[in-house]
């Protein structure tokens, strides 16, 4: 698994300032100029690769939502009379070792993979944002405690954390989501803390504080909105990481449990020499689905980053 975290060290403050500028301007009185948000959207639209990725993701989403209409078989229907059949008019992508339709399983697996990917990334981002904002805003020992915990999580290899959690708590989809989120939240936390530290010292925040705003209010009204652009980018890239983690865990048998299909456990079914040599319909489609989806998510993430923070474009 590649490390998909954006670089976190120096750009934090710069990014925060841009984000703050975005927010400050967006909240300010409208002049004839385009708002920064509209400009960001325009920059995103100009990025063809990112748009292509987005279109592909929408397509996958449609397939996942309308899976029962798209698949012409049940993904669980065992047919011992037709095992390991090559693709045909009836079974568009052939059948697996217990005679189940590979196309139907691929389509239904999209649901699981996207669900796990998005849910895990969302959980990671929410937890990370909260931890990061609280750490940045409160400072002191709270900051130290939270950030050292995050550092600790970051210093473990992601996949090992996830394997241990899945092994301890037993494999199931909620556990999978929690385990992946547990490995991903520190990225978001560190980013949001950086933004918070930068924003904390700005005049409008001092003003709000003097006017008697509570910390909770500051968090909701100023800090999280200021970091939102960066959070979206991190969140998007986390989705890619989470989809990969899900695939890896399911491949290892620690993720999505049979008979439910996920792209990872479809690949697991296809480890044997026979399958690799002579039954490409069993491993090519899920493999391609994972690759294409993760690539698209990353394209979209890169596009979003460039759109939100034009100063970073061309880097990474």
């Amino acid at each position, binding site marked *: 698994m590649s490390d998909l975290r954006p670089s976190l060290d120096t750009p934090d403050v710069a990014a925060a300032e841009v984000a703050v500028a975005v927010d400050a301007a967006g909240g300010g009185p409208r002049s004839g100029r385009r708002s920064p948000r509209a400009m960001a959207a325009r920059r995103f639209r100009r990025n063809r690769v990112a748009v292509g990725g987005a279109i592909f993701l929408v397509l996958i989403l449609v397939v996942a939502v309308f899976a029962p209409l798209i698949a012409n078989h049940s993904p669980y229907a065992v047919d011992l*009379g037709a*095992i390991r059949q090559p693709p045909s008019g009836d079974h568009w992508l052939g059948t697996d*070792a*217990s*005679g189940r339709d590979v196309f139907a399983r691929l389509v239904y697996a999209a649901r699981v993979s996207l669900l796990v990917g998005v849910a895990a990334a969302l959980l990671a981002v929410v937890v990370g944002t909260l931890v990061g904002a609280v750490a940045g805003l409160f400072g002191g020992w709270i900051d130290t405690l939270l950030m050292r915990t995050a550092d600790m999580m970051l210093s473990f290899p992601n996949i090992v954390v996830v394997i241990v959690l899945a092994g301890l708590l037993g494999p199931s989809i909620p556990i999978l989501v929690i385990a992946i989120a547990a490995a991903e939240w520190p990225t978001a936390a560190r980013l949001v803390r950086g933004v918070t530290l930068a924003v904390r010292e700005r005049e409008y925040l001092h003003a709000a504080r003097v006017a008697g705003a509570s910390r909770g209010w500051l968090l909701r009204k100023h800090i999280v909105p200021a970091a939102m652009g960066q959070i979206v980018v991190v969140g998007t890239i986390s989705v890619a990481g989470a989809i990969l983690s899900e695939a890896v865990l399911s491949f290892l048998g620690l993720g999505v449990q*049979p008979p439910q299909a996920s792209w990872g456990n479809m690949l697991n079914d296809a480890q044997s*020499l*026979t399958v690799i*040599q*002579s039954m490409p319909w069993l491993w090519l489609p899920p493999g391609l689905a994972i690759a294409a989806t993760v690539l698209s998510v990353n394209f979209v993430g890169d596009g979003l980053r460039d759109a939100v923070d034009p100063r970073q474009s061309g880097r990474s």
Partner: protein
Amino acid sequence: MRRSRAQRAALISAGLSLVLALAACSDPSQDDDTGTSDEGTSDGGAAEDTALNAYLYQAPNSNWSPMAPAHGPDVIVMNLIYDSLLGVNPDYQLYPRLATGLPEVSEDGLTITYTLQEGLTWSDGEPFTAEDVVFTYNMVANPATGSPSAGKFADVEGAAEVTAGTADTVSGFTAPDEHTFQITLTKPNLGIVGLTGNIFIIPQHVLADVPVDEMDTTDFFTKSPNVGLGPYVFEEYQTDQYVHLVKNPNFREGEVDIDEIYLRPVTSDVATAQLGTGEMDLVQISPADLSTVEALDGIEVASAPGAGFIRTSVNELKPYLKDVRLRQAMLYAIDRQQLIDEALGGHAQPVNASFMKDALPDDLETYEYNPDKARELLAEMNWDPNQVIQLTWIPGQRDRDTAATVIEAQLNEVGIKLELNQVQPGELTDMMNAQSYDMTLYGGGNYATEPFAVYPIDSCNTHYPNGANLSFWCNEEFDRLVQEANQTVDEAARYDLYRQAAVIENAEVPMIWLYNPDTIWAHTDRIQGFEPMGDQTNPFWNVQEWSLDG
């Protein structure tokens, strides 16, 4: 950017040390077939070392003791480093190994006498005598050593005292002279030869000083069982990599031809792929890979019928799993014949009772696939379609994984809500100890050599952990028939009783019988003399007749 000379030298040396480090990490046995290749001039006149790489279907538990609970991969190792009075051949007949022939059973059935071969020595040169046998049988019959097999000796004179802790040794095991071993029984027990004749004999001169209750954890068994009577001697176990064995210079049939054996625990998929690359010489393959492997150059395939079967237990301690009609419905609901024909390519036999061969009557209910009949039975017993049943198993073997998927789909089809639950071996042991599973899928056993082997998996007295009855089924009439059969000296009458018991078992369905799979071996054509064995824990049963071309 230009690098200075010193920088370049540093880079080169860093690169070199990396290469060296990698070389150091690599597996010495994989270098080539000469094994100990670091002796330099291999083109000299000396005969080359031959090393065989074989597949171990799971990682060893590192307890190579006849008193440890049987773990297949450890048994494979023990079959190579130890020897036993009798062995089991591919026809599942007993044949003599350390004994000169099959034991003599007295007419009253109470005395069993083994005559041992003379002039045998242990791998360390010490002489082997009947005292070693008495020592071994005393250890295995003593539950204080952790032995789960003590129950097999219940009918031996003095065994009850040892079990109760009032005696240290079983008075019924004696050595009248150096080459005779005698078992004295309190009542006839015809099955005891088949069930205990193949116990691995351990060296008394090495183990005599080990306290009995530390026997199962002593270093000899868990680290280095390097004294034995088998064709090979234990060299080392590199955790999760390989078990390394070298030939025994004092083996009873003379030195074997193949100098070294490496047993490697990998998944069956990896092993099959390595067979193709030449890294593996002997592998047990899944029927699904048969045609691929047959197409490989220089690979030969051989198969033999198994002596056990794949089944799922049904935990009858759970109130909702008690009704016999539920278990019958399950058999009707699963298309076992098609599972055999399609998923296993016909390389398995149907099973409808645990007995085999002559102990199996012809007129058993065959439970042909009939989902309507299954639904009828379920309706009759008012089966609650919302009751969820979990099927627990250790994944990793292709045919079992497929069987689990098929069972799930077909039981749900008739209205039994089955959920699949994959676990690690340790977790399954915990569930067994807590009796918390609903159904478990597993396989193995040898019921072909001695029909009394069915008793431990079916009787009221052998509910887990006192035996291997994982369904907690209990039928007193069945127990009575099997016990009586085991005490009946007359063979025809004995098998008649076993057949009566089989009829009861067949009707009561203590477990969901799936199939008896053939064991399929694939090996390089460099191995000469290989004879396929259906017991997957003993592929090396005749290794002394093998040779390996360079």
